[in-house]
């Protein structure tokens, strides 16, 4: 029954050439696998987490110390959330660099962007939940960043009505993190796959070729990817433990106070000037608007299509820029946000 239902989300028949691993690298499917792992591990974490400022940190400590597999589960959840962000970005890059972002994929492009936004937002709200120093200050710097935007103050009062350490704010982040955002992500990712089905599969890749049945030609690699991704994450989580800092202390900021790595590039950017936040917004807007830019349409997907060279160049430069800012923020910033040597 469930298998039959799931099968309806995918196309019934697929182009044989589209199944080549070098076309999609299965990035979208791997992202879905990671999302499912996040749902599973998150559901189990619900049994122990207490969403109040007094008890949040101690409930995580209890999970780490007294619960068999508790620490492992938290590591898995954290690792999977980071991997999901990376996979979504790589998947978006694949779509852009194979020329598949133009018509008729525009609607799915928007859904994809919503999914990336939701993934970042979910990761951000999850960052606060352990209520340790790391969590508190990363959230604090993010919220102050929000204030620089138009309507930022209003949004801030909506998200953290009693300040970042307050009980209402923690409860709000919790509600968003465990119900609203995952539900939206699940619905949108199903829609994301369903739109592909409605469009009779992905944009055709490579030379002309015939269709094959999804069972087993699509589902076999999908299930294989699912298993490999799951096993890899389960193994990696054993070696990459999730950190737990001392309880949040609003009086003493760690020095330097860094936001979550996926937002660090913005923090690095605004450390030059607060108006640089508009540069970040412009970059994001440019990415979203990509299908509407005057770029010729391609009818068949291929890596780096000739007509799309300027787009590919632009996107790679922008990604390099964001990556460079992230690395500077991660490794080259020390106390008082001064430059330090990473060695």
């Amino acid at each position, binding site marked *: 029954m469930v298998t039959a239902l799931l099968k309806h989300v995918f196309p019934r028949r697929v182009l044989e050439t589209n199944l080549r691993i070098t076309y999609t690298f299965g990035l979208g499917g791997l992202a879905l696998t990671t999302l499912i792992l996040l749902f599973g591990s998150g559901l189990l974490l619900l049994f122990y987490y207490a969403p109040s400022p007094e008890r949040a940190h101690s409930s995580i400590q209890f999970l780490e110390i007294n619960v068999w597999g508790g620490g492992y589960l938290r590591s898995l959840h954290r690792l999977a959330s980071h991997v999901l962000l990376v996979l979504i970005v790589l998947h978006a890059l694949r779509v852009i660099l194979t020329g598949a972002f133009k018509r008729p994929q525009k609607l799915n492009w928007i859904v994809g962007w919503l999914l990336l936004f939701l993934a970042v937002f979910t990761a951000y709200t999850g960052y606060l939940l352990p209520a340790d120093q790391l969590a508190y*200050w990363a959230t*604090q*710097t993010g919220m*102050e*960043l929000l*204030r*620089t935007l138009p309507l930022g103050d209003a949004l801030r*009062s*909506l998200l953290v*009505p*009693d*300040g970042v350490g*307050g009980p*209402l704010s923690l409860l*709000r982040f919790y509600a968003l993190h465990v119900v609203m955002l995952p539900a939206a992500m699940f619905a949108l990712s199903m829609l994301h796959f369903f739109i592909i089905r409605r469009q009779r599969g992905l944009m055709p890749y490579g030379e002309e070729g015939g269709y094959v049945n999804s069972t087993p030609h699509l589902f076999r690699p999908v299930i294989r990817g699912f298993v490999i991704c799951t096993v890899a994450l389960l193994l990696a989580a054993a070696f990459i433990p999730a950190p737990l800092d001392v309880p949040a202390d*609003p*009086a*003493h*900021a*760690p*020095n*330097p*106070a860094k936001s979550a790595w996926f937002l660090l590039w913005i*923090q690095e950017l*605004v*450390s*030059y*000037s*607060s108006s640089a936040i508009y540069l970040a917004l412009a970059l994001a807007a440019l990415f979203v608007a990509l299908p509407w830019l005057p770029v010729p349409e391609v009818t068949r997907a291929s890596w780096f299509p000739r007509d799309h060279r300027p787009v590919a160049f632009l996107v790679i430069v922008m990604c390099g820029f964001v990556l460079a800012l992230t690395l500077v923020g991660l490794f080259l910033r020390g*106390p*008082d*946000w*001064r430059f330090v040597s990473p060695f």
Partner: protein
Amino acid sequence: MAKPARSRRTALEALILSLLGGFGLWRFLTPRGRRSSREEIKVRTTDVPADGALVLPRKRCAVVKSGDSIMALDLICPHLGCTVNATPQGFACPCHGSRFKSDGQVVTGPATRGMTRLAVEERDGILSISREEG
């Protein structure tokens, strides 16, 4: 596109409903009276070292004395609201690297204005510092 009048009506209905819903949700999510708008901090004048500063991290303020003049500085960074740290030279922000002199003036950005001065009143050897919260 076959029935423009009808689709316009549907769009209008959707617009009105989402505006009403959005307004209700907004009101629901912004509760009243969660914190007081004015905060008063009291310290003894003798606690402030001569030509030095008394830092109250929990209250996010510092009382600075140079010669006879006393002033209170808000430790909330005027750039993006992190809490600045006291250093031997003045104050430094751990989030974006702004630096300030001990009287609150900007030494290096990204902050574009100095630290906020809080109102101080001295009476019978007690300093009252007040902060209006936004």
